[in-house]
């Protein structure tokens, strides 16, 4: 407050405003307050601001704007602000670390900030380490299951001891022109395969196999599906000339269906 120089060029007996007065902040303002005041004034004193009309002219706006800039540059930097307080006799009863907020303290150099950050990080890291140890003791990880591919599931034909004898037996059965559910059972009896085995390897549902062997057409699927199922069923049992068998069986299925519709 001791800067009482008179402004002789303007002819006004005014002491120069201090930087604090210029920005309109108190002496113990934080750097956030100073920044806010600066932006408010900067936005007010612009050439395009209509609200200044007739109050101040263009050169005055420039002048004020420059002063505000100057004041902000000094006050926003904590070192220069302390220096300004000292030289202009502001009785700042503030300790060095009371000005400014957490990261804008007076005397905080880059290395100080770096050290603070390092300490902070180490603290957090050690915390995290402890946490991970606790975690590992509480929850032991289970050994992972290895899902190996098993090729024995993919099996195209029924396994038979004597292939020549089996085929001759099968072909005798296949000569039967009137194909029905009993013949399917007989065929399966010769091969020694169970219903479940056929279901497992051909992926035909058990219900369908049962309906096939008991001639219950009502539970069978549509014709095209039936054809496919028959093909894979007979193929698994190594039945020769299976196309003729399928045709004859499908003929039977069609007859049943026409009876149903009538």
């Amino acid at each position, binding site marked *: 407050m001791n800067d009482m120089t008179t402004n002789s060029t303007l002819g*006004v*007996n*005014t002491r120069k405003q201090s930087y604090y007065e210029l920005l309109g902040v108190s002496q113990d303002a934080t750097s956030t307050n100073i920044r806010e005041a600066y932006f408010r004034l900067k*936005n007010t004193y612009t050439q395009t601001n209509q*609200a200044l*009309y007739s*109050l101040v002219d263009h050169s005055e706006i420039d002048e004020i704007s420059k002063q505000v800039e100057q004041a902000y540059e000094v006050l926003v930097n904590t070192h220069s602000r302390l220096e300004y307080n000292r030289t202009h006799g502001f009785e700042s009863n503030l300790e060095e670390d009371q000005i400014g907020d957490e990261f804008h303290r007076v005397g905080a150099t880059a290395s100080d900030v770096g050290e603070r950050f390092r300490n902070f990080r180490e603290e957090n890291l050690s915390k995290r380490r402890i946490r991970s140890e606790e975690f590992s003791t509480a929850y032991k990880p289970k050994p992972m299951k290895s899902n190996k591919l098993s090729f024995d599931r993919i099996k195209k034909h029924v396994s038979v001891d004597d292939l020549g004898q089996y085929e001759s037996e099968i072909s005798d059965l296949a000569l039967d022109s009137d194909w029905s559910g009993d013949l399917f059972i007989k065929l399966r009896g010769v091969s020694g395969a169970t219903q479940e085995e056929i279901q497992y390897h051909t992926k035909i549902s058990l219900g369908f196999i049962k309906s096939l062997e008991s001639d219950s057409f009502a539970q069978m699927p549509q014709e095209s599906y039936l054809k496919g199922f028959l093909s894979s069923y007979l193929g698994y049992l190594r039945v020769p000339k299976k196309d003729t068998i399928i045709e004859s069986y499908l003929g039977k299925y069609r007859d049943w269906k026409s009876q149903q519709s009538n």
Partner: protein
Amino acid sequence: MDITSYSTKKQPQGQNINHANEWLKERHSQWVAGLPPFAQLFDVHNVPTMISIGGGKGGVGKSFISANLAAKLGSLGFKVLLVDLDLGGANLHTYLGMGSNKLSLADFVLYEQKSFAEVIQPSSANNVDIVSGGKDESWALEGEGNTTGSLALLWESILGAKRNFGYDFVVLDLGAGIHRHTVDFFQSSHLGILSVLPEPTSIENAYTFLKACMSRLIENVGTNKEEFEAAYKTKELLTNPDRSRGVSYAQRIKSMYQEYPHFVEELFYALSGRQLGIVINQVHSQRDVDIGLSMNQICQNFFAFQSVFLGFLNHDDAARKALRNKSLLINDFPHAILTKRIGSVVNQLQKCLGY
């Protein structure tokens, strides 16, 4: 006519101190420090909250704001007295949808035939009574010297509106220009609302008006404290164009502190007892609103007024339609955006007056 000869048409209501607003009670001595010397207070605790609407330029919506603001305050339950002080261009009654009253302020001030109580007329708005301004031609007869005495009577009537008639608010609709009485009423009200259009002409006149208010306040403080020399010197410093480059009013007043410390302290003391509200009228865009915010900043920094940005009123044809329908806007168009804006201005006004 004597001040004690009020008719008993309206019974006085609250004469208890507790009824007074806390905000006003706290700042009462500050407020009194800047009053004109001829305004005498009878009861310091029963002062109505004085709100005056000015703006320097004509056609900025002073009467419109006064009428609607008073009606809004009335609808909130306050008893409001609306006084048309636009002497010579009185048309406040038209905004309220009333025909010109036979009894007007002219009968009280100029002709001195009626008492103030007789001049007060009930208005169309709820809880609002009006003193209309009178016919133009009667004010043209106003002489130079003879009005000060009768205006002192008007001052006493207005300041005693709470004690005598129980009004919570007195809303003064001021005229255009910087006539001495206009400025006196503006700077001595608790809240002076500056109505501004976002145009250079209106802004220019508003600043002229504020400058006139400041020099009038300096005069009043000087007279009250009997520091005529200090007041004269300060006024000279403020009005001298050669000395005013780049230095704000606030700074110039502060520079007088070395010579007249007591006077400058008293002046700032008086300034802290009155508020300045800024309302931007006929707003079209956000840029117009920003002018209001900037003006608020300037009033604080440049003039050292305690200023508040009360809000803005958008440009709306509803205002003109309501006028043609001869009814009040907030009653005629209760759902218009403009009505809501008036509501928010009143809300802000109540906040800054501590209601």
